């Protein structure tokens, strides 16, 4: 069975180590904050200039001057810091953020990612995504393994305009955990009840099956 959004987020959160600084994109990546394992603390970076992002505010805490990168009202945790946009991207570009988790339309076997633009549709912009994929030490892409029509999103070569090149190393989908190694997707884990053959059939780019494919723990 394909994993739910929450289960994908749960698997993502297992990647985090105690003391990691993490930037989470909109959607499934944001959900990962709710599943950080017991005994592990991570600090969330929001690229509009907040390190130590807390939960959404209660009604009486709402503050127009406290927002996240998605422009939502938010709070800061004890020990947070707030800074300007150039400082924020110095952290990102300088490789100081341990993990970036973001969604994508397509990823290919060379670690290229397309996540911001579909030709023919109105382009709203890349926001901070291009900076994040160019700067973070570890990037995890979360997405469904195929699109709504069942077409693979893990490809030999991205077809959409790119967000970054040679930057993706790890992909967590509703079917599998994969790494990008030597021009192929290396299958490391499969979702419970999903066979290697299923994953093979739904992957567009070259798939190498690890000797020991384990079941995702979610």
């Amino acid at each position: 069975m394909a994993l739910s959004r929450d289960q994908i987020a749960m698997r993502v959160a297992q990647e985090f180590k105690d003391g990691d600084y993490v930037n989470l994109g909109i959607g499934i990546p944001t959900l990962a904050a709710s599943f950080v394992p017991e005994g592990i603390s991570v600090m969330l970076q929001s690229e509009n200039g907040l390190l130590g992002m807390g939960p959404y505010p209660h009604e009486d805490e709402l503050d127009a001057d406290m927002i996240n990168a998605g422009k939502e009202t938010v709070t800061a945790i004890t020990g947070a810091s707030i800074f300007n946009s150039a400082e924020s991207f110095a952290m990102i570009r300088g490789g100081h953020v341990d993990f970036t988790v973001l969604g994508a339309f397509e990823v290919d076997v060379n670690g290229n990612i397309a996540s911001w633009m579909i030709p023919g549709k109105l382009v709203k912009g890349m926001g901070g995504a291009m900076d994040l994929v160019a700067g973070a030490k570890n990037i995890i892409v979360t997405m469904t393994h195929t699109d709504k029509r069942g077409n693979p999103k893990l490809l030999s070569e991205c077809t959409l305009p790119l967000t970054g090149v040679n930057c993706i190393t790890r992909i967590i989908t509703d079917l599998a955990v994969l790494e990008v190694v030597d021009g192929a997707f290396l299958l490391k884990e499969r979702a419970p009840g999903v066979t290697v053959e299923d994953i093979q059939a739904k992957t567009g780019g070259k798939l190498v099956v690890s000797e020991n494919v384990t079941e995702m723990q979610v």
Partner: protein
Amino acid sequence: MSGFDKVVTTYQEAMDGLTDGMTVIAGGFGLCGIPEGLIAQVKTMGTKGLTVVSNNCGVDGFGLGILLEDKQIKKMVSSYVGENALFEKQLLNGELEVELTPQGTLAEKMRAGGAGIPAFYTATGYGTPVGEGKEVKTFNDRPYILEEAISGDFAIVKAWKADRYGNCVYRHTAQNFNPMAATAGTITVVEAEEIVEPGELNPSEIHTPGIYVNRVIKGEFEKRIERRVVSKTVQNTTAKESQ
């Protein structure tokens, strides 16, 4: 020290000298930390053909979005736009030009513009549409693209507190692009929630030193919230419980 007194009392004085075709750099992220009164003054003046450099372009009827109503903006330089229907319409009509710029590159372009650095290399955008036509240079086996600095005829900035000398402090995430914008204007105008006397701000805690600032005006702010999201769960102060 009257030569250092930057305070003006009217919005006409604050934006005096703005003419058609100029470049205006505006601080703010979404609707957070935007110089509301200065934007309203640009609308009142009716200045046309503006190039506006700002991370976003407001929403319909608020923020920089109000400058679209009379087609005052010729070109936007932003990382993310399209939160407003009017923007979309003018873009599709060809009445508005947009130069999409990655958010970190945009911040660095402003910073460089204010710091006398004409251009810089960054990995951001290499191999993407953003990198097309730009010089590529390899450092330590990694390719980087050359991005040019941005400066403006005017920079409009929103501060929490400013003193008469133009020293500024920002509040929370309303800081965002404001400090970079402040450095990058030929004329930098600060609209502050509160104006204080020199000495009232702690010198060690000033975000923008007054040297960058030409004019200071006290504003009244609506501070509209773009996406109001409240927590339904019990408040918890650890990061991992967030959202």
